[in-house]
């Protein structure tokens, strides 16, 4: 779950009112956010680097807010404010209008196909940055990179001062040695090859190098004068870097996943077009594909869905009028109205809500707006008869009786996909050498075995393992436990139809002190006195006898 840090006072100013921490926490809870932490830059630095480094840092109060992983529209202050304002009935939906003239073209060349095939772009015209807006703009790119962009592997965002470059732009791919430019915040030009080794030690950028490192051609974007805008997904050029003074921003997104590229571009422009001379207005860019096909971006697609009030009422378990439901949805940034045809509601899904992909997503928003905790709790009238899984039933019953037989249950990890339970029990003993003797332990758990007949090529096998650890080996104790277990399982001591044990060779056990357990003629396990080498390797000092067997044959 991504965490967004916003300055509290800035947030309250944008929301048009202030809240106590408790009130804001409550608001977040209802909306599905979590006020994770109330802190300040000073506190963060002091915690991470010590008090001395923190002196002089800002003590402006920061809210750290956890945002659901699919709500990319809430990853910055601007988006959070819009979402919460709508939720609190504060304002209605915002508009994104498209200008008439597509002014910029990004040309796509076929070389990118093998490395990073998709590119989309847009322009924010006449934007006014302040320090806070600028910081938020940079921060949103970072949040998107870490989340939907999957650490830049799926999508990488580049933002440029449009007044320093001139279109049309060319998106191509070249050999690393043939790309040369001055990267962001560097003083001289490097070839792409040099950059890759330069950034090997960069704490931030080194995580992205693997995305293109082993490719023969690296993606690169040039302007019409041959100026390098960026070498996605690694670094932008220094030439076109944006600053507080930047008025016109060219945004490009290159990607391996086109759907996500479009979503990311939509998110960048919907969030920050608010600060353009004509608010919520974004300028299009034309992308020309190698095959001559052209596309206009951003798509900023509004999608209309029709559903019935009955659908919402039935799925949520409420009984609201069609109009009320339309109002609930509108409060969640989904502009809705009753069409008048029965209980039909038309819902408009804005480009910011890429998470809405099905009617059930719309239903959830209605339920959130209604308030989960206002829904009447009901009991499904489903009549069912419970059944235990036979293997678990047998396990439960056996465990009780093994404890009654004086053995104590241990519980060890299965993570290694172990094939035997014995080592876990021996480790448990090793960790409890201080306990009074004898130690009598058992465990019933699954081990994992390869099995070609299963779709995944492996299966679990339920095992029963017991150990006896004392000054004498106590084979008779473990043997007695086997007899008791067989008695519980209604298997009589006899060859053929019953159970018997017979000498076996196993390096885990002391020579001549190991036997196989046969049940109805089938070998189900083994018992014996452990070999001193085994005892030593588990750092144990006393003789020990053990039993391990499969319990599935007794189902």
């Amino acid at each position, binding site marked *: 779950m991504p965490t967004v840090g916003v300055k509290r006072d800035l947030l309250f100013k944008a929301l048009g009112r202030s809240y106590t921490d408790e009130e804001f926490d409550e608001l977040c809870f209802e909306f599905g956010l979590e006020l994770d932490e109330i802190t300040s830059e000073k506190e963060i630095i002091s915690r991470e680097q010590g008090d001395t480094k923190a002196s002089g840092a800002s003590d402006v109060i920061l809210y750290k807010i956890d945002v659901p992983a699919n709500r990319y529209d809430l990853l910055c202050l601007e988006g959070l404010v819009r979402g919460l304002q709508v939720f609190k009935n504060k304002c209605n939906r915002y508009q994104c209008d498209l200008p008439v003239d597509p002014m910029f073209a990004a040309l796509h060349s076929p070389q990118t196909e093998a490395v990073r095939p998709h590119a989309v772009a847009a322009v924010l015209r006449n934007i006014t940055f302040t320090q806070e807006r600028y910081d938020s703009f940079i921060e949103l790119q970072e949040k998107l990179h870490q989340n939907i962009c999957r650490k830049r592997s799926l999508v990488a965002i580049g933002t440029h001062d449009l007044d320093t470059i001139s279109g049309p732009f060319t998106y191509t791919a070249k050999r690393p040695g043939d790309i040369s430019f001055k990267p962001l915040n560097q003083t001289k030009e490097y070839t792409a090859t040099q950059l890759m080794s330069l950034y090997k030690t960069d704490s931030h950028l080194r995580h992205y190098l693997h995305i293109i490192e082993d490719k023969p051609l690296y993606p690169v974007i040039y302007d019409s004068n041959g100026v390098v805008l960026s070498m996605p997904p690694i670094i932008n050029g220094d030439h076109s870097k944006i600053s507080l003074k930047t008025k016109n921003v060219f945004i490009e997104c290159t990607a391996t996943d086109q759907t996500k590229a479009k979503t990311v571009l939509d998110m960048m422009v919907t969030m920050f077009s608010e600060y353009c001379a004509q608010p919520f207005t974004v300028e299009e860019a034309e992308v020309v594909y190698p095959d001559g096909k052209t596309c206009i971006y951003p798509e900023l697609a509004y999608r209309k869905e029709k559903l019935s009030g009955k659908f919402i009422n039935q799925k949520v378990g409420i009984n609201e009028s069609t109009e009320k439901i339309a109002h609930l949805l509108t409060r969640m940034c989904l502009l809705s109205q009753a069409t008048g045809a029965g209980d039909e509601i038309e819902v408009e899904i804005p480009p910011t809500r890429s998470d809405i992909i099905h009617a059930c997503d719309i239903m959830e928003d209605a339920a959130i707006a209604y308030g989960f905790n206002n829904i009447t709790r009901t009991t499904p009238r489903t009549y069912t008869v419970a059944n235990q899984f036979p293997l678990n039933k047998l396990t439960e019953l056996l465990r009780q009786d093994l404890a009654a037989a004086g053995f104590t249950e241990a519980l060890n990890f299965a*993570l290694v996909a172990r094939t035997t339970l014995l080592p876990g029990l021996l480790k448990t003993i090793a960790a409890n050498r201080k306990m009074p003797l004898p130690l009598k332990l058992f465990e019933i758990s699954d081990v994992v075995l390869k099995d070609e007949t299963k779709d995944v090529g492996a299966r679990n096998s339920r095992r029963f393992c017991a150990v006896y650890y004392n000054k004498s080996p106590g084979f008779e104790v473990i043997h007695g436990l086997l007899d008791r277990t067989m008695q519980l399982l209604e298997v009589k001591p006899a060859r053929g139809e019953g159970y018997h044990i017979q000498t076996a060779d196993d390096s885990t056990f002391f020579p001549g002190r190991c036997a196989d357990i046969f049940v109805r003629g089938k070998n189900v396990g083994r018992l014996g006195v452990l070999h001193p080498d085994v005892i030593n390797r588990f750092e144990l000092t006393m003789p020990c006898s053990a039993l391990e067997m499969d319990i599935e044959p007794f189902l």
Partner: protein
Amino acid sequence: MADTGVLETLLQRVEKVDDGVDSLAVATSLGVDHQVIVGAVKSLQALGDVISAELRSSKHWELTEEGTEIAEQGSHESRVFSCIPQEGLAQSELMKLPFGKIGFSKAMSSKWIRVDKAHEGGPRIFRTVESIDDQVREKLLLVQKGHSTQLEEKEKNELKKRKLLSEVTVKSYWITKGNSFSTTITKQETELTPEMIASGNWKEKKFKPYNFEAMGVAPDCGHLHPLMKVRTQFRQIFLEMGFTEMPTNNFIESSFWNFDSLFQPQQHPARDQHDTFFLSDPAHAHEFPQDYLERVKKVHSEGGYGSQGYKYDWKIEEAQKNILRTHTTAVSARMLYKLAQQKFTPVKYFSIDRVFRNETLDATHLAEFHQIEGVVADYGLTLGDLMGVLHQFFTKLGITKLRFKPAYNPYTEPSMEVFSYHEGLKKWVEVGNSGVFRPEMLLPMGLPEDVSVIAWGLSLERPTMIKYGINNIRELVGHKVNLQMVYDSPICRSGPPTQTE
């Protein structure tokens, strides 16, 4: 047991008086050590209400070691006096005696002796009086005989200053007759024996009372693991609620059933190496229900069933990758798919089993834990039904105050985090996750469109840690557990909310 003679003598003493006797006085008059009488008192007390003894403390004066010596041999000054012959004694000779130095100065200040410094052959000491009265010795003798009251406080303090007397606190018993006082002692039996039962002579015997303050002998027994006790409890709750147990005995799962079938996209971060354990052998699963697999592929990449889909290039290679399952919901998916292949009947399923996640390990997180999961599939289930079932489930655990927070989960919509009010912490704490399975998961399986499936999950370890007050998960599971904790853990009995847990 003290010597019967002493016991009987003591009882006779007590019988003779009306108000009682002091153990110290008895010891003095019998000429035995006080401890002997104290032992006798304890023995008599153990016999029942023969006597009653009240512990008292009193202060009295006692001679120090030096004081005792003086009482026997006289004060240092008197000894100096008596060792000086008529013709006098050289001072150097006198000083060689052990009492010489102190005795000399005291005798001088009492003017019993004099020094002739000009004497020929060094200073010489002579008597100045014929006889002396050794008062120090007499006073000490009085104290020694127990008559310290005859001395004035001032005199006693002076002797104390000379370290000849000391004041000591003495504990003694004031012994009076008990309700069943008798001067004869009956020997008490310790235990009932088969012979007594046979002969019936237990009727005449007196039995030594038990010490009910002592602990009993620990039974020789085995113990169930606390986490498994809580598992049994949760299993019981599900069974009481009519839920059928799912077969979750398959730790190794294909990405297909663990993720794809749940409409979890292939680029989802949970499918990263960082979050999931992938298997190197057997690395891949084979044999999927082919037509179902095609439907899953389509709903991911193109949508359908009313969904936009995720619009990406779905790859069979990703779905084939074997992993250690990250949730038991993989089994729920298999069960729901199986259910969809028959004529639909409503079901309630549950499971409690191990799941594996490549998590950052800390005091509350391990790379494997037990997931508790409940699933209900029926026609027309609502979000209200989900919250109602959760309310019933948690009420059985003794948790009644619940509230729900919107959340995100790729395979449920709506998704709700379940919070309960923790009376101890005075705040809402997350106790589980829940939701309604997405149509993109259910419809490709072939379940009817009007069937909804609600589900919830929580970890077994967390409630167990709370129940048994364990702060570090490593103290609960794995080989490093302290067996004493296992031995000592109480039964797990969750119950109606009136119980305080």
